[in-house]
């Protein structure tokens, strides 16, 4: 009884927090100063059509580095918790139709993932989405092929390599230009081309590889080695 009252009080308290947000809410008409500066700088200084990409990679690049670190720690945590119990590995039976279809589809999914993270500065998408799509491709492989083995050492190598290269590009920004993770170490190029916007496509591709290999490791560990 007391428990129910406490739950009701907690939920009502949460609603009270958000009541002023709803009652005083008005749709804004104009960008605030910081956002207008980001939009303007992204188009004129960085040459990036997708403003969200330039905010993630450049203006808030340090946040993204920390976020990738959190993802790495989560991978390590899952690996430590679930290591070494082979007896409850999920077994699948072979299925002719799914196996044939997925061998075509996995290649298409990988190409789509690479397209998403290399065109992150031109179209919606980028490293995080591309990495997730690549991890889903490996997941389809795990679900369809009975003897599919995904090597942990290759995953670890790709993950460490992209992490080191990401930080290395950041430090090159300090040495060659004015600050950490500055994309001005490469030429800007023509606005809207694939090879443009300085180092932004390179950094986002590295993030894509890192996220893809980390999520694949989480999936392999959760399935059972």
């Amino acid at each position, binding site marked *: 009884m007391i428990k129910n009252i406490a739950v009701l009080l907690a939920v009502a308290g949460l609603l009270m927090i958000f009541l002023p947000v709803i009652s005083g809410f008005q749709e804004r008409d104009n960008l605030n100063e910081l956002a207008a500066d980001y939009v303007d700088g992204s188009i004129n200084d960085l040459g990036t059509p*997708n403003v*969200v*990409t330039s905010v993630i990679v450049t203006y808030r690049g340090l946040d993204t580095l920390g976020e990738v670190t959190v993802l790495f720690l989560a991978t390590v945590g899952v690996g430590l918790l679930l290591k070494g119990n082979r007896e*409850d590995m*999920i077994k699948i039976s072979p299925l002719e139709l799914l196996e044939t279809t997925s061998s075509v589809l996995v290649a298409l999914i990988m190409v789509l993932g690479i397209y*998403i993270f290399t065109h992150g500065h031109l179209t*919606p*998408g*980028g490293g*995080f*989405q591309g990495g*997730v*799509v690549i*991890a*889903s491709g490996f*997941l389809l492989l795990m679900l369809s092929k009975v003897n599919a083995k995904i090597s942990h050492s290759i995953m670890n190598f790709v993950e460490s390599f992209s992490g080191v290269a990401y930080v290395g590009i950041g430090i090159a920004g300090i040495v060659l230009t004015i600050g950490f993770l500055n994309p001005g170490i490469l030429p800007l190029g023509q606005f809207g081309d694939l090879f443009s916007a300085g180092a932004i496509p390179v950094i986002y591709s590295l993030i894509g590889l890192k996220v893809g290999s980390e*999520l694949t490791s*989480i*999936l392999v560990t*959760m*399935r*059972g080695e």
Partner: protein
Amino acid sequence: MIPVIIIGLGVIMLAAAVAAIYFKSLLASIISAGVISLLASVIYLILGSPDVAMTEASIGSGLTTVIFLFALHRVRKGKSDD
């Protein structure tokens, strides 16, 4: 037209959230939670952020459901309840 779509999708999402809490079967709860993520990505698209919509479509519908299913399978091996 857009407000009609938002209200329709919103009603379905709230119903799916309530259903996910009160279903007896865990598998049905997981599927309902997947429906919430699927429809949320349409809401993000209407609000003008296709990047977030793409992330939610790929993570919410695919990977979250699969991770829940892996954990569910490890927790109850062979026990079947609908």
